[in-house]
């Protein structure tokens, strides 16, 4: 099944949370990547029928999602907030989900869903005694109990320990391979890269980039990189570097050289050779703008 967003915007008063986004989420695993506050949750809530778009349309295989409770036959939702009925046991919670879906055999469905998230052992304990990761898993089980064609997860790996995280990633990958449409949001590139075939990048409410992880990686690497270089003779190294086209600009500072490399690969290849030929000893090379935020802001500036 496909979730289609056509020119979707959402604003709160004067604040634009999502700005003219058009995308199609198809079968397989899609990662919605963006820094905190980029509008990921807003977008996901609109796909889940918990927010009306201010402009544009959000549809599931052509059917409007907003104010249409029938879509939940096909959609499973794992919200970000961890609150669940603490007085229910994990088993009662997932079973209630199966019953609310009016499944023909709710007990079997609940048992299967709990097994998928490896929660059989703790199923008879009250949810209020669970750790954050266990709550997350029991929420995933409740969302999976009706074997939905579409699964939406809002920051699903938050609060999970590494082992739980790996297990959920594996589960998501398997479901994607089985042809389900899965979308999850995250602000961590490595997380998204490991699970999603398709990545949609959202920055400041705008759809900044789209592609498979290689494409996104390439776009994130093929950008001007800023390096800080310290050496035995900064002045000499600077004049040697500036001669090559791969270093866009070189400036001499108190802390060393600042080199803006236009061609990342060529620059990393070039630097040691130039230094050797010039007889300069390089002490330190450090990236000055490697944080995700600057990568994102580069992407948005280029797409805008």
């Amino acid at each position, binding site marked *: 099944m496909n979730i289609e967003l056509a020119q979707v915007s959402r604003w709160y008063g004067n604040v634009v949370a999502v700005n003219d986004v058009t995308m199609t989420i198809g079968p397989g695993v899609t990662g919605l990547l963006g820094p905190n506050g980029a509008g990921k949750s807003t977008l996901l809530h609109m796909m889940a029928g918990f927010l009306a778009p201010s402009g544009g349309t959000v549809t599931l295989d052509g059917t409007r999602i907003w*104010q249409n409770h029938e879509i939940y036959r096909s959609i499973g939702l794992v*919200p970000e907030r961890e609150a669940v009925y603490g*007085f*229910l046991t994990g088993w009662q919670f997932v079973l209630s*989900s199966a019953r609310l*879906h009016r499944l023909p055999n709710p007990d079997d469905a609940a048992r299967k869903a709990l097994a998928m998230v490896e929660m059989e052992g703790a199923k008879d304990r009250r949810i209020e005694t669970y750790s954050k990761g266990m709550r997350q898993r029991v929420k995933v089980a409740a969302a999976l109990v009706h074997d939905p064609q579409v699964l939406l997860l809002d920051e699903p790996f938050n609060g999970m320990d590494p082992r739980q995280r790996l297990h959920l990633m594996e589960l998501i990958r398997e479901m994607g391979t089985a042809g389900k449409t899965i979308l999850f949001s995250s602000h961590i590139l490595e997380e998204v890269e490991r699970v999603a075939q398709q990545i949609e990048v959202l920055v400041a409410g705008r759809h900044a980039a789209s592609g498979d992880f290689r494409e996104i990686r390439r776009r994130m690497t093929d950008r001007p990189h800023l390096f800080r270089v310290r050496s035995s003779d900064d002045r000499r190294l600077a004049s040697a570097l500036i001669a090559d086209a791969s270093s866009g600009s070189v400036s001499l500072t108190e802390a060393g050289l600042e080199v803006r490399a236009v061609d990342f690969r060529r620059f990393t290849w070039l630097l040691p050779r130039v230094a050797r030929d010039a007889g300069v000893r390089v002490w330190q090379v450090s990236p000055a703008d490697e944080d995700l935020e600057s990568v994102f802001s580069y992407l948005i500036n280029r797409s805008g």
Partner: protein
Amino acid sequence: MNGVIAGISYRALLGRRRIWLLVLLPVVLLALAVLLRVIGADGERATVELMRTFAIGIMLPLLGLIAGTGVIAPEIDDGTVIHLLAKPISRPVIAQTKFLVAASVVALFATVPTFLAAYLLIGLESGVASGFALAALVGGVAYAAVFMLLGVVTRHAVTIGIAYAVIWEGLVGNLVPGARRFSVQQWAQTVADQVSSSFFLSTEIALGFAATALFVVTVGAVVWAGLRLRSFSLTGDE
């Protein structure tokens, strides 16, 4: 009506500390009745006053507030309501189920103690006990609907609810004659007056008006709550 939702709602409402709030007010009513009996002030007049001012005037709106907002407001606050809303169940059905849970709880916790308190004082004399029990039932059901709607519409349901119960129902409804036509407890008392032949109970609203008003308010609040739930939004507080 959805059995699973009703089950979870009953457990949320009665399984927690909230049940003590629900128990407290009826216990106070019964204690007051015992006290009046002990000090010998157990005439029909005192009984009607206790029923009018405490049972219908204070206990009923507060029970309605606790149960009516209690079936939905905390779930909306902490987001657990998503578990119910993200299901192929129409939102009006969810609102109706929540209403039935709240109404049944108010009916039980208000009607039975009201009848018992009056019976303790004057038995079945002049139909006071059954009259006020019926009033507690219909008034409690209306309050449950109104306060559930309030819980769906605003995050400040309890504050607004208390202000409404105290200021409008308590002061304005009792003191300003014109406003009495628009007060749930005045409608409830009209119903009590209809059943009871007591000389000490007199109301000025016609039964037809009171009955119609109770019905319209109850049904209207439940329908409105269902419509509001259809547009339930998660705001983007990332």
